[in-house]
């Protein structure tokens, strides 16, 4: 089947796949800016994200079984030229980006038409495509400084996208500004770290860097660089306690932006963490392995508990889910902190699964918002009766977040707990259990409001007109994926396992 799919493309196209992935949305962005209205720009965005989705599959199949694609950008050979390097670790992340941006764009048309002024819509889609370009670039590139550039491209686009929420709520502006300040600090930390690494190794190519770092375990500059990189990328990934920008950004951004960011942007930042910790640096370096228990795993566990507790006290549904995202990131960090192949597998598995959950949840909130303009948990009451299709999808994804069997959340938890036990970390198992109970608490609040409260009068009045299929379909695709990949978990587990293998392969010592 893989051969049949790849045979559809001419060999010349296949060879250029990494470049096409990043070029398509970039050119699309330029095109979208000059288009007159929202709808033509949307068609461009749809086309571009379709291309990225298709080529994400191409790259995944090309790297299936441990192959590594090294693509010299512009024909300049690495390590001097910029290299795009696709392996088992970033191919699944590219797939996630491609598929979720495609679903997101389908969802966007009615949602953006409702939330963004018509004259700004084409620029909005252009910004989205720039953001997508940046995210794909960050994921694909094998060059540390190039990664910083793409990280900034995606981040600056994200600040704009978040600020677009100002038409609904002016607080989006402060949220975006806070995000800008913190995001810039994060990027600065990262680039300082990369600078130190360049100083110590004399190369910016990450693969090359890894080979040279093997002999530099005791180098103070390298150790400082590690700290800077972790803090910088941790901030982008919203690692507790560097997450303070995230709740506001998610709460006030347009619905589509929140759904897109929650399922992709922090995931990409998390990928960069894995890339640096495991691939550029090495688990075998003493200063890295010391960080596992006391930084990565510890912050993961604290985040898992603290952010989940905070989520329980929110009154705004989107804020609640934003805190939940911080908490869920804790699971992924814990997986990394375990440091074994099983742990990284669990971390990546949860990365993929969490994107499925949060994508569906935020999309459902977007549907609620477009129909009733509701955001607070109290306003969700009775939606189970007035909007059963959306409320059901929300509930499926919500139960997945808790980790109920027959959802992917259960598979995540199973692998994570197994990995923790494997390492003998009983305290981590206890933390996962407590965090799951907290998740049950906050999801329970949402579901109780949706299903158990009676709808206010006005809601019943307005319930006549229909919800656009373009919003329902992508949401339900994600909700069904949440169930499907429980019963057929093998593909997604294999992706995660392949990613862990690629991450741990590292440089030979």
């Amino acid at each position: 089947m893989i051969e049949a799919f790849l045979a559809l493309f001419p060999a010349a196209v296949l060879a250029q796949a990494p470049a096409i992935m990043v070029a398509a949305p970039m050119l699309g962005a330029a095109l979208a800016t000059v288009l007159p209205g929202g709808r033509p720009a949307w068609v461009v965005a749809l086309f571009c994200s379709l291309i990225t989705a298709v080529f994400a599959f191409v790259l995944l199949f090309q790297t299936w079984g441990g192959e590594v694609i090294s693509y010299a950008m512009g024909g300049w050979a690495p390590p001097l030229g910029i290299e795009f390097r696709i392996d088992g670790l970033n191919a699944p992340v590219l797939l996630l980006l491609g598929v979720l941006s495609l679903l997101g764009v389908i969802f966007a048309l009615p949602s953006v038409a409702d939330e963004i002024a018509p004259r700004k819509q084409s620029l909005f889609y252009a910004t989205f495509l720039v953001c997508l370009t940046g995210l794909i670039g960050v994921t694909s590139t094998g060059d540390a400084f190039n990664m910083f550039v793409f990280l900034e491209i995606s981040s600056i686009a994200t600040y704009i996208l978040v600020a677009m929420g100002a038409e609904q709520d002016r607080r989006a502006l402060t949220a975006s500004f806070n995000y800008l300040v913190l995001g810039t600090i994060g990027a600065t930390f990262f680039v300082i770290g990369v600078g130190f690494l360049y100083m110590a190794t004399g190369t910016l190519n990450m693969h090359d860097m890894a080979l040279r770092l093997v002999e530099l375990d005791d180098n103070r500059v390298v150790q400082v660089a590690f700290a800077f990189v972790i803090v910088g990328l941790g901030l982008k990934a919203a690692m507790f306690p560097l997450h303070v920008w995230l709740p506001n950004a998610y709460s006030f951004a347009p619905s589509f932006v929140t759904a897109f960011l929650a399922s992709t942007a922090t995931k990409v930042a998390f990928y960069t963490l894995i890339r640096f910790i495991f691939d550029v640096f090495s688990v075998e370096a003493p200063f890295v392995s010391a960080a596992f228990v006391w930084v990565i795993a510890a912050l993961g566990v604290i985040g898992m508990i603290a952010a989940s507790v905070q989520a329980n006290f929110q009154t705004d549904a989107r804020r609640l889910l934003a805190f939940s995202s911080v908490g869920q990131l804790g699971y992924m960090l814990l997986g990394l902190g375990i440091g074994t192949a099983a742990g990284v597998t669990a971390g990546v598995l949860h990365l993929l699964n969490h994107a499925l959950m949060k994508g569906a949840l935020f999309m459902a909130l977007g549907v609620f918002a477009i129909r009733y303009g509701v955001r607070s948990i109290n306003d969700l009451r009775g939606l189970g009766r007035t909007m059963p299709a959306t409320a059901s999808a929300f509930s499926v994804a919500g139960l997945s977040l808790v980790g109920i069997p027959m959802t992917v959340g259960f598979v995540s938890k199973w692998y994570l707990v197994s990995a923790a036990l494997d390492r003998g970390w009983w305290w981590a198992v206890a933390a996962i259990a407590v965090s799951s109970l907290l998740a049950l608490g906050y999801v329970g609040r949402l579901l109780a409001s949706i299903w158990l409260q009676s709808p206010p009068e006005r809601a019943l009045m307005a319930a006549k007109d229909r919800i656009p299929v373009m919003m329902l379909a992508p949401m339900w695709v994600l909700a069904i994926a949440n169930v499907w990949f429980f019963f057929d978990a093998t593909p997604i587990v294999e992706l995660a396992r392949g990613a862990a293998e690629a991450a741990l392969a590292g440089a030979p010592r």
Partner: protein
Amino acid sequence: MTVWSVELALVAALVIPLLGGAGVVALGRHPNLREAATLTAAVLLAINVAYLVGAAEARPEITLVHIAPGLDLAFRLEPLGALFAAVASGLWIVNSLYSIGYMRGNEEKNQTRFYLCFTIAIASAMGIALSANLLSMFVFYEALTLSTYPLVAHKGDARARRGAAIYLAILLGTSIGLLLPAIIAVQFIAGSTEFVAGGLLAGAASPLAAGVLLVLFAFGIGKAALMPIHPWLPHAMVAPTPVSALLHAVAVVKAGVFAMLKVGTYIFGPDLIAAAPTSGALAWIAALSIVAASVIALTKDNLKARLAFSTVSQLSYVTLGVMLASPIALLGGALQIVMHAWGKITLFMCAGGIYTATKKTEVSQMRGLGRLMPWTFAAFGIGAASVIGLPFFGGMWPKLFLTEGALDAGKLILAGALIASSILNVAYLMPLVGRGFFDRAPPAKEIRKPAPVLAVLPPVITAIGALLLFFLVGPIVDFLSPVFGLEGGGAP
């Protein structure tokens, strides 16, 4: 080529109720046909399970879904599961008849949803009964919790919603917070979660690890309602009575204690439980639950609340049997699942019958009603006698075996707790029957409308069943003996 096989029958036990559910939805606009779908499914399921009981010897198994390497949803038939499936499916027929009488008699709303959720719940119970490993059991355990939630919240008023929320919070909370980590730990220690004769963990886990796991299982299986995890059960009584009868006297709670029994028998094994440092303490907690819940039951005037606490008490008999971990005590626990199911469903159906006819819910309002509703009160009396454990009623056997198990283990006080509980049972169940018959009859207008035949006949059937089980215990013991390594037949 044979089309039919035992393996297919295993799958059919899951599929038949679900097909029945599909039928219920398809026929939702025609109440008579809809109920026919439920009844057809119930009868087919009972026939299928009867066939399975006959085939349990061969231990057939089938993998339903291959989730990921090492993780399977699979079924394997063994005597305990076959017995639980037989009880649940057999009583589903009686209860379906009763549901029709009750739901129509009380003009309940959303009946299609009610019957649909009922079929899903029964399918989940079958899944629990037939599971080949802990993972499969956990999946169906949670499915049972979620599918019964709409049934508990059926009335939709504030009280029903609150009760249902507590129900869900406790059952999901304990299962995710305690049971799931325990299951994954078993997977980690033993490399699988298969149910293995003699105990999967025997020889693999240290007594200390087993002790910790035992605690996690005992409280993680919230459906077993061991104190202090029990409050969901009284709160679940806001459900319509057929739900309380079949689910909260048979399928749900028995799924809990059945899971406990199965974990004790096939995951730990009696020897490991005996060696675990916590089993003694858990036996005491079970004994305390037995007595304390009986005392609380005594103070409840609401009949269903009283029966709920009685159930809490009776369920802990099974947990006690598991913790005593001797063959005779385990056998007593297994028998308790059967005997208590027949007795308690009778009591609940009688309570519902009384409510349908008179709208009375409090014990103190029911004086003399026996003269107006003789069949219902007679059935109640038999059911009560069986639950108490009086001779010539099925409920006597498990009490006898459990007491013997406690005495064998040299735990006189535990045996005393069992006897004390039986006395308390008499005190909270029998006055209703006595006063029902012997107090002055209330004016006949107390009966607003006579209870439908379908609300009176089913408890009479189950009451007769509770009587017959006293004599039928031999074959059941023979059937179960190999599981616990007991030498064949009859009462010891």
